[in-house]
């Protein structure tokens, strides 16, 4: 069974801490993504990567950075956590071809981060 695994299901961090959220996929997918999900705001793209060491800003990259040193792993970094970064963080991966009818994202189970 193919998987996207996020390292923590729940996380509580203090304001100002540097936070690492890890995501690993075992499907040999080229593309990986980080979203945050907030009530009333839906899923918003933070960063994505279409290859090792490559990264692209999404719609809300401020306060975040990412790292992709290996194809299977995509890390989201909160440089200095703030309370407005309390959210559900979802990692996803996909193959490159959006024209394939079977193309779609595979999501991890999410990390619920609370910044206090």
């Amino acid at each position, binding site marked *: 069974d193919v998987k996207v695994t996020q390292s923590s299901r729940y996380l509580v961090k203090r304001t100002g801490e540097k936070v690492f959220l890890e995501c690993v996929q075992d499907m040999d997918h080229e593309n990986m993504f980080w979203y945050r999900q907030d009530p009333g*705001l839906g899923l918003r793209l933070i960063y994505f990567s279409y290859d090792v060491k490559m990264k*692209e800003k999404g719609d809300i990259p401020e306060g975040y950075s990412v790292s992709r040193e290996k194809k299977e792993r995509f890390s989201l970094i909160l440089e200095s956590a703030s309370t407005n970064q309390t959210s559900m963080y979802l990692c996803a991966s996909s193959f490159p071809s959006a024209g394939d009818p079977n193309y779609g*994202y595979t999501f991890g189970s999410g990390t619920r981060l609370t910044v206090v």
Partner: protein
Amino acid sequence: GQQVMQIPQYQHVQEGEDFTTYCNSSTTLSNIQWYKQRPGGHPVFLIQLVKSGEVKKQKRLTFQFGEAKKNSSLHITATQTTDVGTYFCAISGGYQKVTFGTGTKLQVIP
């Protein structure tokens, strides 16, 4: 970037009733995807539509892509309590970056 409007935001139905959610875009779409997120869960890919006027079925779920490729719908026939969740449409842009609609939250009353 491209945006997609999804309606309704919420829908409560009696078990056995039908349900439809709609996605609309002001621009022509190359494709549209549909996802389901159960309460407390993560989005799960259901289907992608790529052709104008395309209709696809998955058991009680019927997906349609408009002739002009600017709108899409998901219809559930005879809802069951297992259909509860939020249904998202999503559109892809460059680098297969996907933008999600705001979702329709479906509640099924037994």
